[in-house]
C-alpha cells in the first residue's frame, strides 16, 4: 500500500499551487483529514466526501485512501454511520464493473476493481473484519458489508472462498442473513451464497450443515413456490449448487426428507380454459427449469448407484414422479419445460424396476386413452416436434428399457404376430413406422430405441428374428432383419444407415442365431466388404463412423459365428477380411470411431448430446458395446487369419525364403528397440514440454499481473497528462537519482570486493602464522626432548656412579669393622637428617 501511494505520488507530483485543486489533491486532503482528525464528525464528513469521489476518482481514492479506510473500520467500529460510509467507499473502489464516470479515463473493461480487491485482501484478516460487520444489525453496516463481500468475491472468487472457508463461523454468519427480515439483505445474501458455493465442495457442505435446505425452502415458501419471482429462482440455483456432484450433500438432502418437500412445488394449479398459457410466465418457466435440474442432480446417472437408487425410490414414494408425469401429460406446457421434464422422468426411472413399471402404467388423457409411453414415442417419430424434445423422448425410452427385461419383452411382443389384429397403436408399431419412414432422423431414433430392447437380452434378440413385415401384396413377407439390410444397401442418408448398423451390431452381439440370420441374407456380407474396401482414409466423420460400424458388424459375425453357414464360417470370413479388406485396413476402420471427440463425449453420458439433428450419429450404449468388444474382435479376426497362414504359406517356404523371413524378423526386432528408445525420448521430451509450458503459464500469469498493476498506475497517469512537464522533471530527478544509485552500487560492490580480499588475506596470514609457530614449537620441543634425554642419561650415569660408591662404602665399612673400628649405622644418620629439617623450614 505504502509503495502504491508513494509511486503514485512520484508519478503525479504536487500540482502547481495556482491551478484549480485536482481530484487527486482533494482526495489527498480528505484522506489526511480522515486519518488525522480527532473529531468523529470531521472524520465522518471526510469519509462521506471520499465516498462521493470514489466513483469518478476511484483510482485516487483507492490508492491513497485504503489504509485510512481500513483504519476507520478498526478504530470507529462502534459508529455505524462512518462504518457504513467507509464500507460503501470500499464497495465503489472494488466494484467489478466499470463506472460510466471512468470509461473515458480507463476504458471500458479495466480491472481496477480487481486490483484493489487484491490489495485489500492482501492484508490478513481484512475479510474477517468485513465478516464481523455482518453481525451488526444496523442496516447501513450489514448491507454495505454484504455488498463489499460480493464485490470481493466477484473479483477474486478462489481467494475469498479459501479465506471464508477457514474463518471461524464465516459461513455461519452469511447463512444467518437468509433469515434477515429485510428482503434486500436476504436476497443479496442469496446471490452471494450462489457465488460462494460455486465449485467448492467444502463450502457447499458447510452451507448445507448450517441448515441451508431448511432455510431455502422457507424462503421459497414465503415467495410463493414455483409461481414466485426471481428470488425463488435464486433459491433454486443455490440449491442446485449445493447438490450438483456433491454426493455427501445429496445424501443429506435425501436423509433430511427434503425430496418430499419438492413435490408440492411441482403440483400445477388446475388449468383455466380461457387462457391455458397464462400459467406459464417466463419466470415460472425459469423456476420449473431449475426445479427439474434439482431433481436431475439427485438422480444423475453419473452419481453413485446406491444413492441414486435411494433417491429414485423416495421420488416415487412421495409422489414426485407422479407430479412429473402429470406435467408431461398436461397441455400448454412450454416445449423447453417439457423437454427438461421428460429427461428428468428418464433419470428418475432409469434402471429402477418399480419406477419403470410406474411409467408404463401412466395413461395420457387422450381419446381414446393411450399409455403415456406411446404418446411420447409418437412425438419422437414426428418430424414436426422440436428436435430436443424428440431427443429427450428417446432418452426417456432408453431409460425405460435400461435393465428392464419385462419392458424389453413387452416391446418385442407388440411386433410379433398376435393372431388377432392389435386394436390400438403400439410402441413396436410406432418404432417400425419410424424405421421405415422417409425422415432419416426418425429412422435413427427408432433403430436406436429398438436396439435398447435387445441390450443384455439374448431371448429378445432371438424373438426379434421372428418378426415378419408384410410388403407389397402378392409378395412374400420379409423379416425385420432383411428389411434392415435392404434399407442399409439402398442409397439412404448416412444417419439412417448408422442407426440401422447400431441396431444390427446390438442384435448380432452375443447372439450366434442372429449372426446366422444376418449371414444368410443375400449380399449382406458383400455390402460390408465392398464398403470397407472402397474408401480409404476418409476424413469425413460420418464416413469414418460408417466404416467403423461396418467393420464392427463383420467382426461380430466372426466372433459370434457358430460355423453353421457353410459359405461364411469363421475361417472363411477371416480369409475374406484378409483378402478383400486387408487386416490393417480392418483394424484401422474398426478403431476409427474411437479417435473422434464425439465418441468419448457419447461414451461419457447416456443422454444424447447432439445440438443439431445432423449431429445425432452415435449412441451411448453402442459406444460401450464397441469399447467392450473391439479388442476381442480384432484379436479373433487376427487369430483366425494367422492360423490360416500358419497352415499354408510358412510351412511351404523354401530355405532362402526362410532366411529372408529371419532377416526381416531381425530387422523388426531392431526397429522395436529403436521404437522403444524413441518412446523413451518422447516421454522425456513430453515431460520437458510440460514443464516448460507450466513455466510459460507462470510467466504469463506474472505478466498479466504486472500488466494489471501497470494499468492502475497508467490510468492515474493519464488523468494528469497536462502536468507532463512536472512529470518530466520528476523523471529527470528520477534518472539522476538512479544514476547516483548506480554509482553507489558500483562503489558498494567495489568495497565489498575489497572487504572480501582483506578477509581472504587475513585468513591466509593467520594460517601461515599458525603454521610457523607450530614448527617452531616442534623444534623447541625436540630440543627440549633431546636435552631431557641427555639429562636422563646423565642421571643414569650418576646413579650408577652412586651405587658404585655405595658398594665401595659398604666394603670400606666392613673392612673398618673387621679392623675393630666403631662405625655409625644407617638409621642413626637418618635421624640426624630429620633433626635438621625444622630449622631449614623456619
Amino acid at each position, binding site marked *: 500500500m505504502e509503495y502504491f501511494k508513494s509511486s503514485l505520488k512520484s508519478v503525479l507530483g504536487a500540482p502547481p499551487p495556482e491551478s484549480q485543486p485536482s481530484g487527486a489533491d482533494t482526495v489527498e486532503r480528505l484522506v489526511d483529514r480522515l486519518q488525522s482528525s480527532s473529531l468523529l464528525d470531521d472524520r465522518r464528513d471526510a469519509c462521506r466526501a471520499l465516498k462521493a469521489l470514489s466513483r469518478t476518482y476511484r483510482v485516487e481514492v483507492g490508492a491513497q485512501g485504503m489504509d485510512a479506510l481500513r483504519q476507520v473500520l478498526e478504530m470507529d467500529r462502534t459508529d455505524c454511520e462512518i462504518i457504513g460510509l467507509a464500507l460503501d467507499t470500499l464497495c465503489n473502489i472494488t466494484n467489478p464493473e466499470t463506472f460510466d464516470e471512468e470509461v473515458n479515463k480507463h476504458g471500458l473493461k479495466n480491472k481496477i476493481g480487481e486490483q484493489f480487491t487484491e490489495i485489500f485482501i492482501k492484508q490478513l484478516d481484512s475479510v474477517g473484519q468485513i465478516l464481523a460487520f455482518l453481525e451488526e444489525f444496523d442496516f447501513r453496516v450489514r448491507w454495505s458489508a454484504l455488498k463489499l463481500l460480493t464485490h470481493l468475491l466477484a473479483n477474486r472468487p478462489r481467494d475469498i472462498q479459501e479465506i471464508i472457508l477457514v474463518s471461524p463461523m464465516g459461513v455461519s454468519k452469511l447463512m444467518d442473513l437468509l433469515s434477515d427480515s429485510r428482503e434486500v439483505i436476504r436476497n443479496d445474501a442469496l446471490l452471494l451464497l450462489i457465488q460462494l458455493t460455486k465449485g467448492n465442495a467444502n463450502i457447499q457442505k458447510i452451507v448445507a450443515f448450517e441448515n441451508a435446505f431448511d432455510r431455502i425452502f422457507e424462503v421459497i415458501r414465503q415467495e410463493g413456490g414455483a409461481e414466485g419471482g426471481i428470488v425463488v429462482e435464486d433459491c433454486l440455483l443455490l440449491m442446485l449448487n449445493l447438490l450438483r456432484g456433491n454426493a455427501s450433500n445429496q445424501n443429506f438432502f435425501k*436423509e433430511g*426428507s427434503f425430496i418430499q418437500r419438492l413435490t408440492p412445488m411441482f403440483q400445477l394449479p388446475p388449468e383455466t380454459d380461457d387462457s391455458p398459457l397464462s400459467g406459464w410466465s417466463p419466470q415460472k418457466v425459469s423456476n420449473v427449469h431449475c426445479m427439474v435440474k434439482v431433481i436431475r442432480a439427485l438422480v444423475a446417472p453419473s452419481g453413485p448407484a446406491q444413492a441414486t437408487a435411494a433417491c429414485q425410490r423416495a421420488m416415487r414414494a412421495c409422489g414426485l414422479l407422479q407430479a412429473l408425469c402429470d406435467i408431461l401429460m398436461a397441455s400448454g406446457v412450454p416445449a423447453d419445460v417439457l423437454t427438461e421434464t421428460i429427461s428428468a422422468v428418464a433419470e428418475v426411472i432409469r434402471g429402477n424396476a418399480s419406477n419403470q413399471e410406474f411409467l408404463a402404467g401412466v395413461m395420457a388423457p387422450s381419446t381414446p386413452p393411450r399409455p403415456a409411453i406411446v404418446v411420447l414415442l409418437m412425438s419422437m417419430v414426428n418430424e414436426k416436434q422440436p428436435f430436443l424434445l424428440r431427443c429427450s423422448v428417446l432418452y426417456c425410452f432408453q431409460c425405460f428399457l435400461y435393465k428392464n427385461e419385462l419392458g424389453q419383452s413387452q416391446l418385442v411382443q407388440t411386433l410379433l404376430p398376435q393372431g388377432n389384429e392389435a386394436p390400438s397403436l403400439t410402441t413396436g408399431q410406432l418404432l417400425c413406422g419410424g424405421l421405415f419412414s422417409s425422415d432419416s432422423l426418425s429412422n435413427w431414433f427408432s433403430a436406436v430405441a429398438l436396439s435398447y430392447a435387445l441390450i443384455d437380452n439374448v431371448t429378445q434378440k432371438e424373438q426379434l428374428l421372428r418378426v415378419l413385415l408384410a410388403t407389397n401384396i402378392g409378395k412374400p413377407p420379409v423379416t425385420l432383419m432383411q428389411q434392415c439390410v435392404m434399407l442399409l444397401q439402398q442409397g439412404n442418408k448416412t444417419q439412417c444407415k448408422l442407426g440401422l448398423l447400431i441396431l444390427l451390431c446390438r442384435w448380432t452381439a452375443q447372439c450366434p442365431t442372429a449372426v446366422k440370420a444376418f449371414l444368410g441374407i443375400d449380399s449382406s456380407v458383400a455390402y460390408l466388404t465392398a464398403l470397407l474396401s472402397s474408401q480409404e482414409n476418409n476424413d469425413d466423420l460420418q464416413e469414418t463412423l460408417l466404416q467403423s460400424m461396418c467393420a464392427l458388424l463383420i467382426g461380430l459375425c466372426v466372433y459370434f459365428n457358430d460355423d453353421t453357414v457353410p459359405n461364411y464360417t469363421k475361417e472363411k470370413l477371416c480369409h475374406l477380411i484378409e483378402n478383400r479388406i486387408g487386416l490393417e485396413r480392418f483394424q484401422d476402420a474398426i478403431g476409427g470411431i474411437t479417435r473422434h471427440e464425439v465418441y468419448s463425449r457419447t461414451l461419457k453420458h447416456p443422454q444424447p448430446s447432439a445440438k443439431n439433428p445432423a449431429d445425432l450419429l452415435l449412441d451411448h450404449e453402442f459406444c460401450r458395446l464397441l469399447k467392450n468388444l473391439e479388442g476381442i474382435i480384432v484379436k479373433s479376426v487376427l487369430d483366425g487369419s494367422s492360423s490360416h497362414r500358419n497352415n499354408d504359406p510358412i510351412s511351404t517356404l523354401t530355405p532362402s525364403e526362410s532366411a529372408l523371413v529371419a532377416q526381416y524378423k531381425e530387422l523388426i526386432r531392431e526397429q522395436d528397440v529403436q521404437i522403444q528408445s524413441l518412446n523413451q525420448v518422447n516421454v522425456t521430451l513430453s515431460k520437458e514440454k510440460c514443464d516448460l509450458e507450466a513455466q510459460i503459464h507462470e510467466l504469463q500469469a506474472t505478466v498479466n499481473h504486472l500488466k494489471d498493476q501497470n494499468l492502475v498506475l497508467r490510468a492515474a497517469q493519464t488523468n494528469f497528462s497536462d502536468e507532463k512537464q512536472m512529470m518530466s522533471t520528476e523523471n529527470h530527478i528520477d534518472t539522476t537519482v538512479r544514476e547516483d544509485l548506480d554509482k553507489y552500487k558500483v562503489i558498494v560492490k567495489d568495497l565489498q570486493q575489497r572487504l572480501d580480499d582483506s578477509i581472504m588475506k587475513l585468513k591466509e596470514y593467520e594460517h601461515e602464522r599458525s603454521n610457523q609457530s607450530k614448527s617452531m614449537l616442534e623444534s623447541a620441543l625436540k630440543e627440549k626432548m633431546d636435552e631431557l634425554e641427555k639429562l636422563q642419561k646423565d642421571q643414569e650415569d650418576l646413579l650408577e656412579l652412586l651405587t658404585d660408591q655405595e658398594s665401595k662404602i659398604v666394603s670400606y665399612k666392613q673392612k673398618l669393622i673387621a679392623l675393630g673400628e666403631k662405625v655409625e649405622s644407617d638409621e642413626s644418620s637418618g635421624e640426624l637428617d630429620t633433626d635438621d629439617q625444622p630449622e631449614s623450614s623456619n
Partner: protein
Amino acid sequence: MSYAYLFKYIIIGDTGVGKSCLLLQFTDKRFQPVHDLTIGVEFGARMITIDGKQIKLQIWDTAGQEAFRSITRSYYRGAAGALLVYDITRRETFNHLTTWLEDARQHSNSNMVIMLIGNKSDLDSRREVRREEGEAFAREHGLVFMETSAKTAANVEEAFINTAKEIYEKIQEGVFDINNEANGIKIGPQHSPTSPGGLAGNGGQGGAQGGGCC
C-alpha cells in the same frame, strides 16, 4: 420416516483411527479395509429408537488430517454429540486427545456430549494404550468411554446409541434448549410435510413404500 428428534453428531480424531469406518459400520453395516482418506467432511445418517421414540442421527465424519482442521472446525458448533476417536494400537493418537478436546470445547456449544472411543479393539495383540488409560482420561475430562471395533462391529451400535441416550437425558433434564437449532437438535415435524392432501389420491399407484427413503 418421521422422527421425534433429530440429533447432529460429529466424529473427530486423528487421521486413520477409523472414524469413517465406524460411520460406515453404523450406517451400512460394512467394513472398509483400505484407508480411504476423508477429504473435508462426509455425511451419513441413520434412524435409531430410544425410549420408544424414533431418533434421526445426522452424522458428519470429519477429516483427521491437520490440513483440514480449519474446515472441520466449522462443524463443531451446531453438533449435539461428538465421537472423539483414537486408535488403541497407536499411542500418539491417544496423546493427541487433549488437543482435540480443547479444540472441541472451544468451538462447540458447552452442552455437547462427547463420547471417547478407543477403536480397533480387535487388534488386541498390537495394543499400545491400555483400556484403563482410556477410562482414566474419560473420567478426568467428564466423557463417556467405550472401546469399539469398526471391523467386528463390537460396540459400534452402542457408541452411537449411548451418545444419543446421553443427549436425550439432557433434553429431559432441560439442559438443552431444543428450540435453538445451533445446539444440533431438532424436534421432528408434527405433520409430515411430505403427503399433501391432493396427491395421496393421485399417487396411490406407487404406494408409499417408505422403507427406502430415509
